[in-house]
């Protein structure tokens, strides 16, 4: 596999690690788009990211010219191998003071980033993959929902999504429809809004930020930004890690691993409206990394 030549993807911001899991000044190694990178977060919270070299062992040795663009946003270090835009996509809820914000997990998955995004957008698998947690047979129907590609914000928005959840919240006895809103503001990132069990007027935010290691491997960083004052971090994390652990073997058994953009490569159904929009959006943007582009 050759290194990334996709300029769209090179110019994006990509996450490389959760800040809460760094030690100030310590250097971490990672891989982004087949390039070995090192990064470190200073005591002031400022990240430094550079292409790994045996002679460069500390952030303060890195000359400005050797530094890659770096940003600390939503609790993660972000970088880019190209010329990224000034700002990352907004998640306004992240700034709300009464929310718990944490990295639920960073998981390695043998799959392309776009396949992982489609899985994140998908509700039809809840009864089969997340049995008795996010769904349960026989409640398998994916009801009609709306999808739009917002032109001014350049993102996909799926609204009016509802799915039957057997234990809608710890407070409720039986199951009920749970509301979801999905955003795809970045080819490899998605944000989900889900009815909050503690405040009917607000929504929990769960975001997935995929770090493309190469075309067929990712590190998936999962951000939680939720209204929950009671549960311990480890309880909240364990729940999300259970869910993710159920998705991982499915994702790793998708063939081919890269997402095919040819509409005739796979068989969509109405429930896949958001995935259809996502594939078209990637095609229109000219993304070629992690996908199998449609024949011209």
């Amino acid at each position, binding site marked *: 596999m050759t290194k990334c030549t996709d300029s769209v993807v090179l110019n994006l911001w990509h996450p490389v690690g959760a800040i809460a899991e760094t030690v100030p000044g310590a250097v971490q190694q990672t891989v982004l788009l087949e390039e070995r990178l090192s990064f470190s977060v200073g005591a002031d919270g400022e990240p430094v990211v550079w292409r790994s070299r045996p002679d460069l062992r500390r952030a303060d040795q890195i000359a400005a010219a050797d530094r890659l663009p770096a940003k600390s946003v939503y609790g993660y270090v972000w970088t880019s191998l190209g010329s990224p835009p000034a700002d990352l996509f907004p998640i306004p809820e992240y700034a709300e003071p009464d929310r718990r914000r944490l990295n639920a997990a960073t998981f390695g998955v043998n799959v392309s980033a776009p396949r992982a995004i*489609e899985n994140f957008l998908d509700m*039809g*698998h809840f*009864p*089969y*993959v997340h049995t008795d947690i996010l769904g349960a*047979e*026989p*409640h*398998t*129907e*994916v009801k009609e929902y709306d999808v739009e590609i917002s032109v001014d914000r350049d993102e996909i928005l799926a609204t009016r999504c509802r799915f039957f959840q057997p234990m809608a919240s710890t407070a409720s006895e039986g199951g009920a429809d749970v509301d979801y809103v999905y955003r795809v503001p970045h080819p490899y990132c998605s944000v989900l809004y889900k009815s909050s069990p503690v405040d009917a007027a607000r929504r929990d935010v769960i975001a997935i930020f995929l770090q493309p290691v190469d075309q067929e491997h990712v590190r998936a960083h999962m951000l939680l930004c939720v209204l929950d004052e009671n549960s311990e971090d480890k309880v909240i994390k364990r729940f999300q890690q259970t869910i993710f652990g159920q998705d991982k*073997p*499915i994702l790793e*058994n*998708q*063939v*081919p691993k890269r997402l*095919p953009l*040819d*509409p*005739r*490569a*796979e*068989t*969509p*159904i*109405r*429930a896949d409206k958001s995935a259809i929009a996502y594939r078209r959006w990637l095609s229109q943007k000219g993304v070629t990394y992690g996908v199998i582009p449609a024949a011209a």
Partner: protein
Amino acid sequence: MLEAARSQWHPIAAAHDLPFRHVFHGQLLGREFAVWRADDGYINIWENRCLHRGVRLSIGINDGRELKCQYHGWRYSNRTAGCTYIPAHPADAPARTITNRTFPAVERYGLVWSSEEPLGEVPDVAGLAEGKLLALRGIPVNAPADKVVEKLKAYRFQPTGAIDGNGAEIAVEAAQDFAVALRSRAGAAETVGVFFVQPVDSNRSVIRGVLDQDAEGAARIAILRHHNERLSKLRDEVERDVANAPAPAPIEPIYERVSAELAEMPELTAHGRKAALRVAVARKWRTADGIAGFELRPVKGILPTFQPGAHIDVHMPNGEIRQYSITNGPGETGSFTIGVKLEPDSKGGSKCMHETVREGDVLAISEPRNNFPLRRDAIKTIFVAGGIGITPLLAMAQALKNQELTHELHYFAQGEQHLAFADRLAELGDALKPHLGLSPDATGAELRRVLAEYRNGMHLYICGPGPMLEAARRIAAEQGWPDSAVHFEYFKNTNKIDDSSSFEVALARSCVTLQVPAGKTILQVMRESGIDVPSSCEQGACGTCVATVIEGEPDHQDVYLNDAERKAGTKIMTCVSRAKSARLVLDI
């Protein structure tokens, strides 16, 4: 060599790799297979990808009749590989053409054989034709097949009768591109071993050895161990030999594209009243008083995929065409079984089936069509069958039984001797509730009891004679069942059709405007203009000719639509219904 290998047969598994309810991951020339044996013994070799989102079907679930994908629960039928159910859309019947790619399967010499594009039959192997054979454990080797075959020519093993000895004489009996036959002799003991090399990929192989004699107990284990040790040693040698050579590039499998219409949201399939299939009557029997059962087997090839609730058109020797529901359970795809009741006032349909058609006769039938789809997302499903109305509901009940979904089948009949398909009914166990010899009043009272406790999430399916069906629908409505939870299928439309109106029909997608005069149906006028529309019963009962109304007020004369659908005015049965407005615009 590998290019020519595509048209040859290769072993891809040992027969003992395919126990019931298991899915085996096979591979040949870079292509992966999901291999599974159905409960009826049929071996399915499929492309190892769900057509929906590419998930490997080898991690799916073999329920004995169908293979279920782990990701979204799509179900694919034994033999045909056609998709029978998409849980995300429980009210829709999946398009019949969602069919996975299948590869041929032949079980021979204790091995399962397949090929991408086979020419001819599985080869006869001299020396393995007779007696009981012993298939050895498959030995995977990370080396190209030709290197493995070369090495096998020098493979040394003891004959079965002298397994503990050493120094047997080995003769190469035959050697081909993908197989070596060896004869091992030690004194009087003699064994022929044929070692097939399965080309898994350009740089990976599996040695599948078969010995010409079987053994029992400890002797068998000793033989298996003997070959296991020696073939493992051979593997190590081959892998060492090829370690320094550059590995050939893996073979990239080419996946067939799905058809263009499946890539879009499904549209109506455009075909008229066609009978493309030829079936032979394999069995005709009296399954109940006045009801004949017919088992219809394909004259060649395999039958298309059906879903519970589907019917076929049977074209009879006397030129009549009638619709009969398929009674089969899921995965039962070798033949279609239908039930035909002899109607006292038969106009030639049931009379012909009862009196003229005999075992061995060939009939023309249509592909199965499903206008009575079964939802499988109900918390409980109630089936109400009257007489021969059992047939579609029997197929549905068997499907729910197979998935262990809660259901009851209430079967109203005149007496025990009128209950059809006793063998299938027996399999339903306690879910079957017969109600025998009831008067119309008593039937009504029983229905009130059966339909008493409607809860949100329950669904009701009714099929039976007109008056009983009407009564059941009325009682259900009285007891709080919404129209959306009540599904029904009439045998025929007994409404008197009033075809005296004349009006204009505009076909929006075809950009055609037609005049429908009194005495002609919309369907007839469309056909005369060369617009091919599917139809089946052509009397407003089956739902095949449904069209979407964009504008105008339909004059419904069918018995397919329910009251809510009639009021909505967005669907029309073009074979009988007409227009109250001067103009109708249809989405055709």
